[in-house]
Structure formats: structure tokens, C-alpha cells
């Protein structure tokens, strides 16, 4: 009995790989763009500009305080009401990019705050401008705090990408839904789905762990 289903599943394997590719495409684009945006927003939130700071802060709070599924629906179903028509794929990428940027923004803010104020004062008093302080003094130190949770956040976001299957993006999760209608062995089908996610996420988990170890011992952080 199981053998029969496994064989059927094997027939669907190319379909699964296509879904895997879609998952990688949606998360990959979102993580890259979301990281850039997240750093930008995080730096703005750590700056002195009150208005921009408040705007970014409010946006991040709204996104963090609402379910991702609802955000995806709003972008896909509700924006068209206002004349913004989006295919499922760009809608998914926009939603996930935004989510990534918001979480990464918070990680970046925490990293920047972890750099002692005296570092900034030392940089200020030698005449470095705002950008030079950030580029040469603050961010290199903040990165040590940012990197481990950043990679951990990537894992969470890749898993969150499964939500976009709800608007018809044929990612691994969607492939699971479609397959289980023909191969009525939920355990097997979604076991395979889970395995595929795990294969992408596990190396990242390992990377995050090893970064954590490296960063906590690391350089020569003496008395600062």
C-alpha cells in the first residue's frame, strides 16, 4: 500500500522541485531586498530625524502587530479595489519583503544600540561626519550583534513564505495541497513538504549557531 503511494509521489517529484524553486525565488528575492530595506530603516530609526524615525517605527509596529496572512490578503485582494492590480508572485514578494524589512529593522536597531555611546563620542570628537561614524565605527561593531539573529530571522521568513500559497503562488506548500488531492496520504505528502523546507533551513540554523559562537568570543573587544 505505502509502496504504491511512494511511487505516485515519486511521479510528482518534478512538481515538488518546481514548488521548491518557487519557494526559493520568493524568499530569496524578499530576503535580499528586505535586508537592504531593513538596514536602511534600522539606521533611520537609530538616527536623530524625529519625523522619519516615528514613521518607520509606526510602520514596523503595524506590520509586526498584524498577521502575515492578512497582510498578504490586503495586498492581493484589497489593493486591486484601489486600482493596483498585482499578480500573485509580485504580491507575495512585496508582502514578504516588507515583513522581512520590518523584522530586520528591529534587529539592526538593537545592534546599533549595543555599541557603547562612547564609541560615537570618540568618532564625533575626531570630526567624523554622520556617515563616516556609521560606516567606520558603529556598523562594523553592530554587525557582530546583528549577524546571528539576522540569519535566524532568515529561517523564520523562509518558513513564513509558505503563507503565500494562500493566494495561489505554487510554492512547496501549495504543491503539497495539490498533490494530497491525488495521493491521499497526508503524512507522506506533507512529510516531503516539511523535509524540503528543512533542507533549506537547516544549513542556515547551523550558520546562525556558529556565527553566535564566533561573534561572542571574537575580536579583542576589550574595555570599551
Amino acid at each position: 500500500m505505502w509502496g504504491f503511494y511512494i511511487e505516485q509521489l515519486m511521479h510528482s517529484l518534478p512538481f515538488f522541485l518546481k514548488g521548491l524553486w518557487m519557494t526559493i525565488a520568493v524568499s530569496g528575492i524578499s530576503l535580499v531586498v528586505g535586508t537592504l530595506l531593513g538596514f536602511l530603516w534600522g539606521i533611520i530609526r537609530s538616527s536623530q530625524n524625529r519625523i522619519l524615525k516615528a514613521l518607520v517605527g509606526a510602520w514596523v509596529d503595524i506590520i509586526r502587530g498584524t498577521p502575515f496572512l492578512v497582510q498578504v490578503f490586503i495586498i492581493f485582494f484589497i489593493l486591486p479595489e484601489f486600482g493596483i492590480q498585482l499578480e500573485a508572485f509580485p504580491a507575495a514578494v512585496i508582502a514578504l519583503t516588507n515583513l522581512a524589512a520590518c523584522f530586520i529593522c528591529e534587529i539592526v536597531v538593537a545592534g546599533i544600540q549595543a555599541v557603547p555611546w562612547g564609541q560615537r563620542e570618540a568618532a564625533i570628537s575626531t570630526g567624523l561626519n554622520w556617515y563616516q561614524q556609521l560606516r567606520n565605527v558603529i556598523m562594523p561593531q553592530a554587525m557582530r550583534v546583528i549577524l546571528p539573529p539576522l540569519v535566524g530571522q532568515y529561517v523564520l521568513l523562509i518558513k513564513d513564505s509558505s503563507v503565500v500559497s494562500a493566494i495561489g503562488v505554487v510554492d512547496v506548500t501549495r504543491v503539497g495541497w495539490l498533490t494530497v488531492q491525488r495521493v491521499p496520504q497526508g503524512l507522506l505528502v506533507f512529510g516531503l513538504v516539511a523535509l524540503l523546507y528543512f533542507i533549506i533551513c537547516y544549513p542556515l540554523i547551523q550558520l546562525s549557531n556558529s556565527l553566535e559562537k564566533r561573534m561572542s568570543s571574537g575580536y579583542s573587544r576589550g574595555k570599551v
Partner: protein
Amino acid sequence: MIEFKDVHKWFGDLNVLKGINLKVAQAEVMVVCGPSGSGKSTLIRCINRLESIQKGEIVVDAMKVHDPKTNMTKLRAEIGFVFQQFNLYPHMTALQNVTLAPMKVRKIARKEAENMGRYSLEKVGLGDKLHQYPAQLSGGQQQRVAIARGLCMRPKIMLFDEPTSALDPEMINEVLEVMRNLAREGMTMIVVTHEMGFAREVSHRVAFMDFGELIEIAPPDEFFSHPKSERTKLFLSKILTH
């Protein structure tokens, strides 16, 4: 070189500087002492605008420090600042620490900046520690790198905010020795410190601060042997007993 004109500063309701008037001449070494919380750190932090002021004016080398039109980069490049906690950049070697600002602010080419950096570090006796990270150096060595970082910008003024207070006793002297040499070379210096030996030996004038006011300024001989104010006498009696 440095002039305070009726400078007032508040932290919220707390009046930390109450009408400071002070002139420091070129090549003068002035020591500022006083109990903690008297406003002496705030006083020197105002000189390179690490702190704002609410009233009055500070003029450094003909530049008004708290005028929004003042080019702060230019002003700060002229003023070296040494912190109690060193504040070296932990991710950079000693040489990188001292060459960063010359390269970025003064736009000096790397090669030349490194020559200047090497010279500055040799001057503070650390010519053999160019490529060490701060955590590989002792406290006294770190503070000397911090002094070299200031010197490497070729400043006209050096400000010291309790430079030896975070050091173990056996390391204090190596830092004071560097400062003594600087004073001898004619650097304009304001030093906030409790090192009364240094004040007596090196400074031209000693200022005593209490509750945000400059109580007394006098040459060290006079300051230590004939203090005028009761508060100065009380402070000296506490600090000079050991």
C-alpha cells in the same frame, strides 16, 4: 585660544554650568579639579560641542562653538579629546585607530596617514604596538593610543577628561609622562583630573569647580599653598591627606 563667556547649561532642571567665564591662552596648561558632579567634565565637553549650552558663548580659535553656522568638522579636527574610558575602536588595530580620522576628515592618503600614525604612536612610546588590537593592550597602553589618536590629527588643543581615573595605579604614570611631554612642547591643554601632583608640576593654572561654578583659578603654587575660598580649602584638605 579658548574663551567662555557667561556660559550656562542645564540638564533638564539641573543647572550644571552657572555662568562660566574663562580664558585659556595658547600653550597654556590648565588643570580643572573639583568634586564629582561639579560640572568639570561637562565644562570641557562643551568645548568641542559634545554638549550643547543654553546661554552664553564659547569661542575656540576665533570659531563660535555653538553657532549653527560653524564648521564643526573643522573645529573638532583642531581639538583632540581623550576620554576616561579611552573609547578606542575595538575592531581596529592601534594604527588603524589613529589613522582613521586623518584619512577620513583630513583626506590624507593612506601611506602618509600611516607615517603620521606611526610617528604619533612612537611619541607615546608604543612604536612596537602598531598592529595590536585594544584588547591586547593594557589600560595605560590603551589610553596612550587614545592620546596618539588625538595627536595624529595635529590638533591645536588637547582636552583630557579624567584620563587616568580608569587606570590601575601602576599605569597612571606612563600616561602622565606622555602628557608632561606634550605640555613641554607647548600644546594648549585643559586637563580634568584628580592628579594633584601633575597639577602642581605641569600646569600653569589650576581651576577649582563646585556646583557648576568656577570658584577659584590660580597658579599652582598659590592654589595649593594659599587657597582663597573656603570650599577650595575643604576640597584640598580632603584630597591631599594621603
